[in-house]
């Protein structure tokens, strides 16, 4: 194993890992305000990619505009999901809500298949596909886009949660919804906001990854699984852990694919995840007690 290919795997891993991280962030944001795992999170990612492709091809829009529209559209869908399927039944046990999100994910996937078929699509890379040599490894410009935009989102979320009044209110909801309601924070609004932000973050992840890994109506399932795995790896509820968990998972997977076998890359990622959970029952950066439900 020479250094150049090791570096190559690392770069690929970080790129994919960044999307896992964004998906995991989406899970974390909704989990923190509602205590549920939103199984439709992977579908938000799929929508980001697929809608970008659709706006470009069917409406002939330029790529940046198509992506912005796709992200906006997904955010709107996130809001609709909360208003129509979650809010009316929010007092139900968590497991019921989780099943509802599973139903929603099936529904979205079904609609996507109906609208866009079962084909695989590619989104053009944002700034050309010519690789740049980087210490012997080939660096795709898109990789830089993925990493830069992911970092931007992370920084934006950090600002939002620590500076803005809405962000602080959302954090308050996650610590203690009853107390938050008592001090006049509209829990309903915060849950709605959390679905919108999750959808937005997921859609951005989907759009920036689509030029690299291609997209189709069913990419959300595996991306959702990986995102959930990244959350758990980092310690559920911890946004920093989620992002880090995504990167770690991506790199592990890429190294596994390169060093062992690409057929078993997913298996390897999960074997490591299991081994880690058995040693650290609440993830890498989680609180000591592995229970938060």
């Amino acid at each position, binding site marked *: 194993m020479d250094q150049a290919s090791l570096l190559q795997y690392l770069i690929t891993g970080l790129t994919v890992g960044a999307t896992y991280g964004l998906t995991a962030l989406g899970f974390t944001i909704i989990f923190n305000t509602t205590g549920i795992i939103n199984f439709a999170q992977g579908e938000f990612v799929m929508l980001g990619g697929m809608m970008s492709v659709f706006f470009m091809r069917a409406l002939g829009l330029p790529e940046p505009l198509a992506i912005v529209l796709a992200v906006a559209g997904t955010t709107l869908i996130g809001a609709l999901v909360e208003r129509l399927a979650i809010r009316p039944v929010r007092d139900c046990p968590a497991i019921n809500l989780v099943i*509802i999100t599973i139903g*929603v994910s099936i529904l979205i996937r079904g609609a996507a*298949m109906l609208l866009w078929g079962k084909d695989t699509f590619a989104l053009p890379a944002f700034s050309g596909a010519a690789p740049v040599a980087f210490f012997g490894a080939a660096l795709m410009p898109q990789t830089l886009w993925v990493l830069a935009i992911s970092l931007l989102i992370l920084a934006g979320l950090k600002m939002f949660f620590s500076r803005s009044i809405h962000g602080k209110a959302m954090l308050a909801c996650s610590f203690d919804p009853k107390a938050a309601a008592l001090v006049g924070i509209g829990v309903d609004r915060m849950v709605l906001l959390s679905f919108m932000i999750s959808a937005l973050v997921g859609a951005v992840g989907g759009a920036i990854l689509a030029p690299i890994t291609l997209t189709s109506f069913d990419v959300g399932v595996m991306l959702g699984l990986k995102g959930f795995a990244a959350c758990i790896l980092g310690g559920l509820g911890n946004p920093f852990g989620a992002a880090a968990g995504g990167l770690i998972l991506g790199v592990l997977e890429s190294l596994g694919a390169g060093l062992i076998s690409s057929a078993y890359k997913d298996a390897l990622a999960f074997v490591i995840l299991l081994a880690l959970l058995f040693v650290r029952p609440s993830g890498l950066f989680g609180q000591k007690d592995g229970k938060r439900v």
Partner: protein
Amino acid sequence: MSVGYRRDMRWLGGFLVVLLLAPPLLGNNYYLTVLTMCCLNAMIAVGLSLLVGHAGQISLGHAGFYGLGAYTTAALSTTLGVPVGLSMLAGVGATSGVAALVGLPALKLKGHYLAMATLGFGVILSILFNETVGVTGGPSGFTGIPRLSLFGVEFSSDLSVYYFILALLGLVIWVAFNILHSRVGRALRALHTSEKAAQAMGIDIARYKLFIFVVSAAFAGLAGVLYAHYLTFIAPASFGFLFSVQLIVMVVLGGMTSVPGTIAGAFFLTVLPEFLRAFENVEILLFGAILVLCMMYLPDGLAGGSSRLWRLVWRKMFVRAEKDPMEGGGNG
């Protein structure tokens, strides 16, 4: 014995009689296949409801156990020529053994972390089914599995296989009721509500979690071996993550703790896609929509929904009905 147990036994009797009489009424072979699949899925779901609904431990990997049973018996009987009865036993045994090995560390985890661990285990198994082509036949499937036979006698008709599966489903339900109406069932419900209090009552919670995990995996393995010898063809797609999720949905849709409800959930979720097949492209979409609506409007699942409906009808029909002694709660 206790009133509850007798009522459950009566229910089981009625259920078996209906399913015994069903095939001639359905007439068509296609319906018989669907009904057989209903029974197999119900077998897994009942075990899972003990684990999830009663003991409060989630598993998102039960499709893996289902597949493990199926592939073990397929490989033993087809590739190695082991008699079917023996290979089926080995399939259930292997599933239970693997469940014990996985459950030992996994059941120390709680809530979402346990969900992740079992999910990861299921994904790993499903990748193995796909990639170990030499053993499993890979994504295109395992063909030529011998039909069900015991002691040299082959179950030559689909109807005979159906009755055999039905008998085993009856056995599984009977065992499930026995568990629920015994100290084991009480221990499970106890550790679900309060692990501390359960320990204070001398319940070894780790042992009981593992026990019910293995039992539910064994039920899934049993369904798997039957499935393999019934269809004589298996493919990894049947044992993936999405099926694990469907199994959980069956339990939740059934109302979590009710065995009849879980069976209703399993039947409903097995029949629904067949029914929706008529709608071709919108099939998946409708499936998702129905799932969402069911969960929104039947929060206690089918069991809760039907008993509410039943009470409503009862009251409407017999205004001066006897007062339910359990209703109305405590006197304070």
